[in-house]
């Protein structure tokens, strides 16, 4: 019985959740992402690292088509989620985003109660038929985001009244509540203090069991701590992609090596 599960997990590990080929992104005339191709595995934390302005956020936003909301932005190339082209005509970005959740750099809770923040997605997608079901979804999401103990007595108070770290965990709970399959995180800890950061990092490690997590980070230590795979971007190019351990100890490209040893910043 135990053995069976082990095998199942081993198979999952190799599942490719997202595969991108020849992705180009333009902001007007600015060619921000050039020929990027990458296979992102399920039940894995994949880190995007690279100097700022190299296109990490831009590429991340391609994965849930958030770039659609920017007028000047144009995306080309193939991105497949579970083998399905997400840029295809018949794919509705609204449905895609229900499957691919996102957490932003700056915590952005809605100016509503903690409960309403978490219940927002489930309500929209009609995931709960009764109030009790909704309560349960909210509780599960808050527990998953390690916020339940702090928030359970103040679910009716404003989400914007929480501390920065709590707000970010609330945003994670909000994203988790819609039961996405992929969780995109754009520098989720950049606005947080070290304690809140380590809480969120622990959380990311736990989320790996259920989700495919992609995290953008400017901190190499963070990438090393939480991720199994790392992709290094430089000037819009994907320079190197592989096991995190290998990227950090034995990079193949000299640009990766310079970045890791602190020569490109």
């Amino acid at each position, binding site marked *: 019985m135990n053995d069976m599960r082990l095998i199942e997990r081993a198979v999952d590990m190799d599942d490719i959740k997202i595969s991108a080929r020849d992705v180009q992104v333009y902001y007007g005339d600015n060619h921000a992402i050039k020929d990027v191709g990458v296979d992102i595995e399920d039940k894995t934390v994949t880190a995007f690292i690279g100097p700022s302005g190299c296109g990490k956020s831009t590429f991340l936003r391609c994965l*849930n088509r*958030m770039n659609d*909301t920017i*007028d000047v932005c144009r995306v080309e190339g193939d991105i497949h989620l579970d083998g399905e082209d997400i840029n295809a005509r018949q794919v509705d970005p*609204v*449905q*895609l*985003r*229900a*499957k691919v*959740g*996102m957490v*932003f750099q*700056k915590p*952005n*809770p*809605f*100016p*509503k109660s903690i409960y309403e923040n978490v219940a*927002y*997605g489930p309500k*929209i*997608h009609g995931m709960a038929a009764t109030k009790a079901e909704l309560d349960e979804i909210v509780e599960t999401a808050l527990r998953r985001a390690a916020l339940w103990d702090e928030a359970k007595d103040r679910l009716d108070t*404003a989400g*914007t009244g929480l501390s920065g770290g709590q707000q970010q965990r609330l*945003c994670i709970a*909000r*994203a988790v509540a*819609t039961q996405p399959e992929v969780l995109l995180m754009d520098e989720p800890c950049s606005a947080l203090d070290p304690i809140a950061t380590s809480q969120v990092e622990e959380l990311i490690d736990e989320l790996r069991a259920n989700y495919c997590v992609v995290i953008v980070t400017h901190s190499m230590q963070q990438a090393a701590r939480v991720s199994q795979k790392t992709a290094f971007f430089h000037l819009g190019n994907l320079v190197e992609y592989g096991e995190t351990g290998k990227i950090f100890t034995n990079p193949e490209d000299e640009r990766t090596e310079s970045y890791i040893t602190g020569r490109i910043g």
Partner: protein
Amino acid sequence: MLFALFLLVPVAAAAAYVTARQRATALSTAAGQRLHSRPQHHGLHSALWVLIAGWGALIVLTVVGEALIQRVLMARISDALPDEGPLQWNLVLSDARSFAQGAVSSEMDPLRERIAGAFSWMNGTRLWLTVLATLGGAAAAAWWTYKGITVEARARVQSETIIRRGLAVMATVAVLTTIGIVFSLIFETVRFFNAIDWQLHKFLFGTTWSPLSGVFEGEMDADKVGIVPLFAGTLMITLIAMLVAVPVGLFAAIYLSDFANHRVRAVVKPVMELLAGIPTVVYGFFAAITVAPLLRDTGEAIGIRVASESALAAGLVMGIMIIPFISSLSDDVITSVPQSLRDGSLSLGATKAETIRKVVLPAALPGIVSAIVLGVSKAIGETMIVVMAAGQGPNLTGNPLEAMTTVTVQIVALITGDTEAETAAGPAFTLGFTLFVMTLLMNMLAQRLVARFREAYD
């Protein structure tokens, strides 16, 4: 002459500024140490005192001198014409003054000539005194502040005190003016209520408005001062206007902020604001000449009687007038809702419509409510459109197709009517006061509502 003097004072102040600053700089160099206040503060201190002394002397002497001359001359005239009354004395004085200043007067006689002569002499003296005092005051202030420049002089602190007091005076003027207006409203209102023996219920709930019909018998008829028809008209027309303006304005704002691309926005927004600049008279005759006949003809064609002046015509056009206020203000607040909130909602798989309805509008609600309150105040206060398109007859009717009138229109009718101002002022001021109380209550209610539904975001 006096006006030139008035302009001369700031010039003197500028000169005092430069001199004082130079002196302070020189002093600092000579003493080899830092001054307590920097040179420009010494300059400012000097300039401020020159302004205060110069303008102060000018204003005081002008006002006091004028009053003095008036009294002395009046005394002489009343001595010369003990049998006449103040009306006649005033006439003599004004004739004499205009003669002295070289204008044509209605008639001349020896008394008038004598008074004119006295006036010329006194006025000339006053003029010279004023010039002397103003220039002297300014010079004294400049000299005194100049002498006061030392290393440890606290010129900056002193100038800041002067400026602070100046600001306080301005604030007081604004507040006192408001209080004065409210008090004169209250005063006239009380007088009016006295005239109807405080039968407030007849005023508040009476259904006939014809306050001047009894004035020739010398009495205000309490049965004819019911404001219900006026407020019914105001409410009806405001309601129609808001039914037009709120949906159109709000949806226009949502379109502009969340759907229109940059180019559309760059054209539409200024055009909307242009609409807000059209004088209401223009809307008024548009309503009277175009919209009202159109409504009447349309009504005729489908067999409904529409009066040629109707609340509907006035309300519709007023609504159009208010659209830009609501759309422009709402657009500003909707645009200022952070993009990060929209992104948060979209990333959870919400549609654009859901995002706007559930996140953007609630966050922008306080601003939208103030926009609507502003719109309602505009509608209540608007007079021109109603005069032209809805008529002046205080009919009590619930039918928007009939002629109606509003509170503001009745105020205009009273003040511009044939009845003398003394009599007409009572009802007019009372209407004004009632309107004031009503808008005040409405504003307070709106603020309460906003405080209750406010969703704070940073």
